[in-house]
Structures are given as structure tokens and as C-alpha cells.
């Protein structure tokens, strides 16, 4: 083959170019420490590198989240533990107070300390972490322990000073009532993502600890309830007055148990009397309620609930002597039914019993409300002569009769259950402006503090302590879980970093060797080039 200068030239240039390209690549590796700098260097490595990098980013984020979660739980734990200690002290004090040998003065001191402890528990309920309230569910910006806004407000004793002696309120004898309580209703979990798609609630639900667990049944004015019977109202809709029942309306009166036959007849008569003769048609309800429920169908064109004499402004009372159950037992008290023309909720169905149960639970709500319990105990240590609701509002009664007996005043009220109005019978709150009302007073034997009764509160306080213990153990187990997750994240982080390094990082020793080799090759190419290119025949011609 004929070889020309240009061929040599081209070959040398190509070789030099190739070896320079290799050097460039190796130098890039050496400088960056990475095997690949562009995806085309090695698509698989490049893409794996991206995957590892994003995994590391996730990992870092999850570790950050878990630290945050740990902080939450740490703060919650110390708050709960502190509350528990406070309750210990409360329990000690109550035990001490239960001792009937204590003088009123001693009990007064205990009462003063309990009031302080109550306020302290309020502060604990408002514990914050980084400016966020720990016990407010997802409402982390509003203090969960705060002012209770009452409607209507408490009676101001000053408003009563010009009144007749019987209607006047004595400032000193008012029950203890704090204007603050655990008002938070938010029970949502605050969840943090600690690893992919794995969420851990980091907050402690304050409601079981501090109270108001059955709070969707708390009436706006918090008045205890009297009603035991349940009336289901099925009205046909249409324009009607506020208290008007119209022909065709159906009301079901339901008792808690099956009644015997005689009792059924008596009750039917009583109902007939209440609604007025000829106004209604009464039949037993269909099976299986046929022995305990009665359907009252309005036949008169209209009945005004507020003015119909037998209806007593909406309260139908069946006296206890008329109630005889099929199992032979009798009722302890008169049964009161609230009559209204508001349709009763049907879905979810609420039967007479569960409605009644909830009303009873409502009456006992102070037991599950920590602050309610404390208020009760505080008031028990220095009883007020006035009957009040749990917020210290005085109930209304009639004027004392000749025997000094007073009757409570009641009224039909409504509350919303499952989006529908339900009627119930409630005590009236004392309104000094109403000349027919008198503050409802306790009977003499209700007034005396009794060690035996105080002893009963110890168990309730212990119950609250248990709640905090439970919360503490739940926090503890969650912290353990986070620690496990953190360990795992650390291990994963190291693993991914190692894999990423294996995949992406250049093997320095090898690169340097390669660089040395390539450099040698390059030198050789240059040297051989200089030898081959230089001499031509020209050099040897004279």
C-alpha cells in the first residue's frame, strides 16, 4: 500500500485526538470524583444516581419529620406527667378532706389549694411546643383551656340587691365557678409522615384527659335535663305556627319498657286528657313496640301546644302511679314527655332508650370532665345553698309554699341531634327580672358536706389519673416506635449512600492508574509522531 504524508498526518491527528479525549474524560473523573457527568456516559448509572439522590432526600425529610414528632411527644409527655402529679396532690387533698373530723376552716384551706391546682391544670392543658398548643387537636393556634362563654350569663348578685329577700342572691354563698375551662372541641390527630406512606399521630387528644367527651350533646346553656320519656314526632311539613299541631300529625310516645295491659289503658286515657278530648286518636304503635309505645294522631284541625290546657306548655306528665311495667316493676318517678311539632331525626335512628341514656350521661358529664370534677369537689367542700348547673348558674323555682317547699320551674327546650331538633324538658335558669321566679334552694340535708360523699370523689379523681397514665403509656410506645423508625432511617441512609458511592464514585486509584497509562500513550503518540512526520526525502537531498 502506498503511504503518503497526509495519511500519516491524519492517523497521528486521530490518535492524538483519541488519547486527548481519554485524558479529558479521566481528568473530569478525577476532578469531580464521579464516574459519570452526563447521562450518556452511562445511562444506567446516571439514572440510578438520580434514584439514590431522591431516596436520600426522602430519607433526610423523614428524619426531619421524626425529629419534629419526637419533640412533640417529648413535650406532651412532660405535660401529661406533670398533670398526673397534680392529680396525685388533688387525690391526697380529697382523701384528707373526706375525713369528717376536719373543721370547716381546714376544708376551706384545702378548697383554696384545690382552686389553685385547678388553675395549674388549666396551664398544663395550654402547654405549647414551638408556639403550638399540644392539647388542641389540629386547632393549634387557639388555647384549648380558655374562657367559657355562657348564654345566658350567670346572675350578678348586684342585680338582685333591690329585690325582695326571697329572690335576692347572697354573694358569699354563690358556688365556686371558674370562668375558664377546657373549651377545645377539636379531637383531630396531627399526623406526621415518618416513612413512606406511614403516618404517626404525634398529639395527645386532650378531650379524654380534660373533659367534654360527650360534648355534642351539651345544650347551649348546659342545663341538666329532666325528661325520661321520648316523643318521636312525625309531622307533615307545611306552614304552621311555631306551636301548632295540625290534623294528620303523628307523635309516638315511647316508654323504656313494655307496660302491662291496665297501665296501657290508663296511659291512653291520660294522653287523651292531655291533648283534649276529641282532638286526637290514640293507638298502640306497631309491633314490636306495641306494648310500650303509643301513636297519637291529631284529628282536630289544629292544636296549639302552648295554650292547650292539658299540654302544660308542651310537657305531658304521666304520673308514676299510672306506670306499671309488664315485668311487674313500677316507675320511681313521674315520666315527662316533651311535645313539639318539630320533626324528630330518623337517621341515624335514635330510639327512646339511647336518647334517654344520652340525657342521663349529660347529667353526669361532670364526672368525665376534669375541671367539672374539680369544681364539684371544690363546691362540695363549701356547699352553696343554691341549686346550680355545672357552670354555677342558679336554677329557678317557685315561691316557697306554706310548708317551705319549693318546686323547680321547667320548660321545653330543643337541641340539635344529628342535624334535627329534638325537644326535651329542662330546668329553667333563674332570671331576676321575672317576678314569678325565685332562686331554687337546696334542701337542708343537701347542704351539709359529708365525708362519705367526698370519698366517692376519690375514685373519680383516680379515674382521671388513669386517663393521664394511659396517655403517658401511649406516648411512650409512640416514642419507642419513632426511635425504631429513626434507627431504620439511619441504616437506610448509610446503605443508600454506600450504594450511591459504589455506583457513582470513581475508583480513584484506578482513575489515576488509567490517567498515567493514557498519559504514557499520549506521550508515545506525540513522540512517534514527531519522528514519523519530520523526515522526508527532502531532508536528505542536497
Amino acid at each position, binding site marked *: *500500500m*502506498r*503511504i*503518503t*504524508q*497526509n*495519511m500519516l498526518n*491524519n*492517523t497521528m491527528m*486521530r490518535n492524538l485526538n483519541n488519547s486527548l479525549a481519554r485524558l479529558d474524560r479521566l481528568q473530569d473523573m478525577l476532578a469531580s470524583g464521579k464516574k*459519570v457527568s*452526563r*447521562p*450518556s*456516559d*452511562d*445511562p*444506567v448509572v*446516571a*439514572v440510578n*444516581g*438520580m*434514584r439514590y*439522590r*431522591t431516596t436520600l*432526600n*426522602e430519607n433526610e*425529610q423523614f428524619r*426531619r*419529620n421524626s425529629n*419534629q*414528632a419526637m419533640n412533640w411527644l417529648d413535650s406532651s409527655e412532660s405535660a401529661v406527667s406533670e398533670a398526673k402529679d397534680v392529680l396525685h396532690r388533688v387525690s391526697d387533698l380529697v382523701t384528707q378532706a373526706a375525713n369528717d373530723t376536719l373543721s370547716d376552716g381546714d376544708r376551706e384551706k384545702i378548697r383554696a389549694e384545690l382552686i389553685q391546682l385547678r388553675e395549674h391544670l388549666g396551664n398544663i392543658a395550654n402547654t405549647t411546643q*414551638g408556639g*403550638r*398548643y399540644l392539647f*388542641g*387537636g*389540629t*386547632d*393549634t*393556634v*387557639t388555647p384549648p383551656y380558655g374562657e367559657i362563654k355562657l348564654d345566658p350569663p350567670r346572675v350578678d348578685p348586684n342585680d338582685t340587691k333591690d329585690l325582695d329577700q326571697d329572690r335576692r342572691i347572697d354573694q358569699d354563698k354563690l358556688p365556686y365557678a371558674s370562668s375558664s375551662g377546657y373549651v*377545645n*372541641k*377539636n*379531637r*383531630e390527630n*396531627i*399526623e*406526621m*409522615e415518618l416513612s*413512606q*406512606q406511614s*403516618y404517626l399521630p404525634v398529639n395527645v387528644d386532650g378531650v379524654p384527659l380534660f373533659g367534654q367527651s360527650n360534648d*355534642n350533646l351539651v345544650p347551649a346553656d348546659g342545663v341538666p335535663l329532666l325528661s325520661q320519656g321520648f316523643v318521636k314526632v312525625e309531622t307533615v311539613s307545611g306552614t304552621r305556627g311555631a306551636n301548632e299541631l295540625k290534623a294528620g300529625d303523628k307523635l309516638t310516645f315511647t316508654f323504656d319498657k313494655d307496660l302491662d295491659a291496665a297501665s296501657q289503658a290508663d296511659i291512653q286515657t291520660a294522653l287523651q286528657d292531655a291533648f283534649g278530648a276529641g282532638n286526637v286518636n290514640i293507638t298502640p304503635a306497631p309491633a314490636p313496640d306495641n306494648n310500650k309505645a303509643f301513636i297519637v294522631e291529631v284529628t282536630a284541625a289544629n292544636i296549639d301546644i302552648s295554650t292547650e290546657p292539658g299540654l302544660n306548655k308542651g310537657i305531658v306528665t304521666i304520673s308514676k302511679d299510672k306506670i306499671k311495667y309488664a315485668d311487674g316493676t313500677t316507675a320511681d318517678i313521674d315520666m315527662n314527655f316533651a311535645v313539639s311539632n318539630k320533626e324528630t331525626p330518623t337517621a341515624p335512628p335514635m330510639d327512646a332508650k339511647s336518647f334517654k341514656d344520652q340525657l342521663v350521661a349529660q347529667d353526669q358529664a361532670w364526672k368525665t370532665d376534669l375541671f367539672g370534677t374539680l369544681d364539684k369537689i371544690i363546691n362540695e367542700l363549701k356547699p352553696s345553698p343554691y341549686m346550680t348547673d355545672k357552670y354555677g348558674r342558679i336554677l329557678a323555682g317557685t315561691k316557697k309554699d306554706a310548708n317551705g317547699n319549693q318546686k323547680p320551674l321547667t320548660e321545653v327546650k330543643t337541641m340539635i341531634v344529628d342535624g334535627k331538633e329534638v325537644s326535651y324538658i329542662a330546668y329553667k335558669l333563674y332570671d331576676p327580672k321575672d317576678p314569678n321566679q325565685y332562686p331554687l334552694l337546696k334542701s337542708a340535708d343537701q347542704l351539709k358536706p359529708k365525708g362519705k360523699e367526698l370519698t366517692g370523689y376519690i375514685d373519680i379523681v383516680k379515674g382521671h389519673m388513669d386517663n393521664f397514665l394511659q396517655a403517658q403509656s401511649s406516648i411512650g410506645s409512640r416514642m419507642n416506635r419513632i426511635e425504631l423508625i429513626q434507627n431504620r432511617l439511619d441504616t437506610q441512609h448509610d446503605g443508600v449512600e454506600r450504594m450511591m458511592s459504589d455506583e*457513582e464514585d470513581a475508583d480513584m486509584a484506578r482513575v489515576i492508574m488509567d490517567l498515567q497509562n493514557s498519559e504514557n500513550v499520549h506521550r508515545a503518540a506525540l513522540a512517534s509522531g514527531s519522528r514519523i512526520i519530520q523526515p*522526508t*526525502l*527532502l531532508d536528505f*537531498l542536497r
Partner: protein
Amino acid sequence: MSFFGLEIAKRGLFAQQGALHTTGHNIANANTEGYTRQRVNMEATPAFPYPSLVNHTSAGQIGTGVMVGEIQRLRERYLDNQLWTGHKYLGEWEAKFDILSKIETIMNEPSDHGLQNTMDAFWKSWQDLSVNPEDKAARETVRQKGIELTEMFAHLSRSLKDLQDSVDRKIEVTADTINKYAIELRELNRKISDLVPHGYVPNDLYDQRDLLLDKLSKITDIRVEHMKDANGKENGMIKVDLVGVGPGSPPTNFTLVDGRDDVFGPTDPVLEVKKDAGGWNSIVGKRGGSIALSFSEGELGALFELRGVPRTVEDFSSIVKGLKADAILPVAVSKNQTPSDSVLEEGDQLTIKFSRELMHTDEQLKKIQDEVDAKFGAGVFKVETNDYRTFTLTVQAGKTINPAGKTLSFGTDTLVNVEGDTNASNIDFTFSDPSAPSINSVNVISAASNDKKLVSGDKIVITFDQALEPDPGPKDALTNALNIAFPPNGADNFGIVRKDDKTYELKVKDPAAPTDPPLTVNLGNGVNITLNEGDLKDVDGTSNNAITFVLSDSPAVVTSSVPMKGIVDGTIAAYQDRINSLALEMAHYMNLVHTKTASGTGKAYDLDMIAGKSTEPVPFFVSKKDPTKPPENAADIEVNPAIIASINKIAAATDPNKKSTGTSFKGDGSNAAAIAALKFMKVDFLSTSPNSYGSVAESTSFDDFTRSIIAKLGIETAAAKNFQGNSESVIQQVVNQRESISGVSLDEEMSNMIKFQHAYNASARMITAVDEMLDKIINGTGLVGR
């Protein structure tokens, strides 16, 4: 014979001098690009004496010296052809590698500043928000990272668009280069044709021409033909064809240079660069009118592939070309229609169908209604649609109409499809006689047309206007129809393949053995194929009216292609498409979660909603053009101006369940967590451009999708780099071989120089010898005895 020696020596001097001059020419041009070394071929002049009757005879012939026979250009035409064939691959892969590496630079992966990292940072900001939902700083971070992400998308999209534009400009420049070469080649052909008839061999012009061809062959695939004169002798001129760039199937060649090409003036370009409807450059050949050229090879082919060619959408206007709506659905659609009745009555329907969904606006519907009213009279038809693709025209009460021959015409840019593109050319719907057959297109794709027959491999495509029931029903019907049309067993010659629920392909089968002659189906002047009433059923089970169509040797219906504005299918476009998909899907799912309504896992709540200042969450990503709409592409995406204005609009919470109704829940980060969890969600990515990576949904996470973009890019670039290297080696090899034959070797030229110099010197010495001889004769003789 006295001075004969001088003559011989003189000839020697001249010949050697000529050879020395050529050697000098070679040395001088040793480094000239494209130069081919030349060699003086010397030959002995005719010997003396020449035999004739009157000559005296003597022993032998005396040589008369030397002359320059020819100056030969040492070149191997075979190697040229090899170079020209291989060069287009080098051009193609060089261009591809160049652009793909630029895309790599744009994508900037793997790095800590690429798209992946920006996305990671965005998701992380949501994670942080989910943990600290009431934290203003966390909200601010979400907003900033959202803006960063949109800027990243816009940057990628814009950079790719810029790259695409620069490739488009390069197409223009390259076309100009071809023009320049063509003009020079033409000029060279003209000069050569002036010289060759006179017996000159214009070696240096040939060199220049071959050099131009070398360069041209890198740009596209060329075929060079050496032209011959009337006697079959090469006349030195060449014809250059650009291979496979013309229209037709298979594509035809376009002649770039044809000899003297006197139809063109000295500077007339052969190619012209035009802007197509989408504003992209396209190349038109100016020989015998304007011929649209499409390049697929070489650098120019690569540039077109990279930039992308405007997508032509088959049958954008291939509507039901004629018809009472559907022969397949006679009862449902045309209740008063009898097959022979051309007049439509109340309740009868016509259907027109577009190849793509139109924008769902009343305006589009009104445009169609207006056009229908204009052509058929107001109130004749009511136009309705469910999907904005198929529009039904229903005859109104008391009206009758024969639509045969009427055309609905929608001028350029009157219709807008869902992607926002307008039609780049007219869309016409011509209605035929309603009683005419209902098959709307029969395509015969035949290799051998106009010979009244079909042979093995020919295909007939039948398209029905309704989706048919699954096989075997329709297949059996077609088999029967073929057996009747080509008795007795004509169907045996056809393979019947269901392409989709509306399309069947009849393919003439291959012969049983490869050595057998191909099967032939004679068509004569056309064979009627009839599907009787009730032979076919559509997917709903409704049967057809009788359908007859004609098989002839020429394509029956040519469906028109309409270029869609702004959409191109190509390498860069494919990446743009993916970035668009990613951005749009992300915006879609982000907005879905960010504006979640009560159904499912609860309604999304922003701070303003929690505070009761507003009732609905806002979308997170919106269109730059119109913030009330979702973004249209990656460059159009922005964080909702409402969120830019107030971080309260970031919806980190979901509505609480019943137990907390009515309470504030600013500390709820569950919606932020749900958004952060989108990172891991599998999403169906639909391509906005069907040809770029398949129209099938890819179900994968955003991260995976991003990685798949990079993987594809890496693999493509690496392949381009490899191919470039390979073709470079091939070219190097050929160039070396050519250099070996045609290159100037200085050593050789030096030795030649010495050789010729010596010969020259010897010839000169010969003159001295003859001179001395003559001197002897003239001055030294006749002096005897003086």
C-alpha cells in the same frame, strides 16, 4: 537524418520538463483539499520509418523519442462512491450527537440543580408544611419552591424550544449550503462541458467537483451519475440526485444537478426554503414546479428528525364523506329512510366527524351550526354533539333535504381543537347521496397499480363508519362476499385481518412456496363486493343496510392530510412532550388534591377557609395566560396568583370529621401530607403527541417518569456517540484508502523530480553529443591534407 538526434533530445527535454512541471504542481498542491495527484503518462512517439511502398528498407525501426501521452488524475471512482455512501451516516450522527448533548446540558442531570432535585425540594416543602401547617415560614417555602418548580419547567421547555428553533434555522442554512454546492456543481459542469469536447482533460475541475460532492454527501444521500454523450462516451458532466426525498411511495429522487442545467440561470437556487403552516422551515425543490421534499438521511435528515416534522393528521377531514349517517345503524339513526331514498326527512341524521376533539365551547358548535345553516338553509338541521368530535345533524320537523353534493367548508383557522391548535388548511365535508353505500373509504395499497389486478402483498383497507361486533361475524361476512365476488373460493386468496373495530385489511396472500409465482387476483375494470342487508352487525347489535363497494386497481379514496399547527413529532419535540406531560400531570394531580372536595377523603381547606373568609380552595398551578384555567404546557404553568398574593391560600388542611365540626384546625397538615404523598403516587402519563412515545398511558411515579426521560436521553446520546464514532472510523478508512491512491507523497514526488531531472539532464547531454557530432561533421571534416 542529420538533425534527428536533436529532435529526439528536444522531445525528451519537453516531455521531462512537462513531467517536472506536473511534479511541481503535485508538490504545490500537496495540501490542497480534494486535490488528486496527477501523473504524466509518457509514451514513445511513433517509430521511423513508417512502412510504405516508397520507403527504403532498413533493419528495424528507429525510435523517435517521447511525448506526453496524457496527464492522468489518479483516482478510484469506487472509493468515491464508498465515501459518498458512508458520509451521510457521519453527517447524521454528528448532528444527532451534537443536539442530544445539548439536550443533556439543558437537562443538567445527574446533578444537584436539575429537575429531579427541584421536584424533590418541592415535595419536601410540602412535607415540612404537613408537619408545621401553621408555620408561615413553611408556607412561604412551599410557595417559593412551587415558583422554582414552575420556573424549572418553563426553563426546560423554553430551552428545548430555543434548541428546536436553532435546529430549524440550521435547516435553512443547510438548504442554502446545498444550493451553493448545486450552483457551483452546475457551473463546473458547464466549464467541463466547454473543455472536454476539445480533448482537454480538466483534472483540476474534476477535483473541485469531487470535493463538492464529498461535502454534499455528508448533508444528504446523493447518487452521482456520470453523463454520456450520444456515442455512449462519458462527457465529463455529472447528474446528482438527492435520493428518496421526493413525494410518492416509495419516495422518488430529486435531481439537484443535471449536466449543464441550462434551465437555471447562473445563480438560480434549486431548493427553496419555505415556512409551513406551523411556521417551520420546509424545503421545496424548484425543478418542474415546486416539489415538497422530505429529507431523512444525512445531516439534513437528522436535523429534520431532531427538529421534528409537522404532524399530518390523517383524516382530519376524513369525515363521513357521504351518507345518511350510518348504513350500519339504519333504524336508530335514520328512521324514515329507505335504502333507495335520497331525501332526508324529520329525524334523519347526518354525521360529521373530526379526527380530533374540538375545543368544548359553544363557539365551536355555533360555527358548525352556522355553516350548516348557510349551506342547507336555516332551521333545516340542528347540530348536536356529545364529545365535540362527532357532530350529528338532525333534520327538523317539517323539513326535507337531499344533501347529495353539498359541502360544508371550514376555512383555515376557523376550528380549534382541544389542544388549542387551529386547522391549518380547509376542512371540507362533502355529502354524497344518502342512498349510496356507507363504507366511507376503501383504500387499495397496491405495489403494481394500473394493471387491473392485485398480486401477493397488495392490501385493501376497508373502513366502516361504525364499530363492528367482534369477529367472527364481520370476517365471515367479508369471506362470503369475497367468495361471491371471486367465485368459487376467491376468499382463499385473501388474508382478512381486523385492524381495529372499524377497519379490515384484505391482503393478497403470499404463494404457498417462496419459489411459486405470486398469487394474482384479477380485477378487470372493477369488481363489486356486496355485503347484504343483515350481514354485518355493529357493536350495539344493529344490522346494516346493503353495502356495495368497488375494488379497482387504483386507490379508491385518498384521505387528505392536514398539517396541525405547532405540533411536530421529532426528537426534541419528544422531550418537550415529556416535560409537558410531567408538568401537566403534576399540575393536574396537585390541583386535584389542593382543591379536593368533600367526596373521598375530605375537602381541602386553606387558612382563609378555616377563618371563614372563603369557601372554596384555589388550584395550586394555573395557566399563565389565564389564571382561571389549568396550564396548557410546561411553559405556561405558574403558581396561582392568588397564592402568590397570599400564602393563606395554600390548602394544608382537610375538613375535620364531625366530632370537631365548627372548630378551628389550623394545625391540621393532612392535605399537605396528601400532596407530599403524590411523590409516590403512580400516575397515568398520557402523551400529548401520540407518535413520540406511544399513545398508551404509562403508569409510573413523577420521579420515575423524570428518570425515564433522563434514561432515554442518556441511551440515545450514548448511541449517537457510538454511531458517530463508528461512522467516523468507516469514513477515516475510506479517506485513508483514497489518500493512499490519490494523495501526494512528497518522497515520491522528490524521487520523481530527481528522475525527471536526470532524464532532462541526459536529454540535454544528448543535444551536446549531437552538437559535437555535427561539429565534427561540419567543422572537423573536409580538411584532410589542408
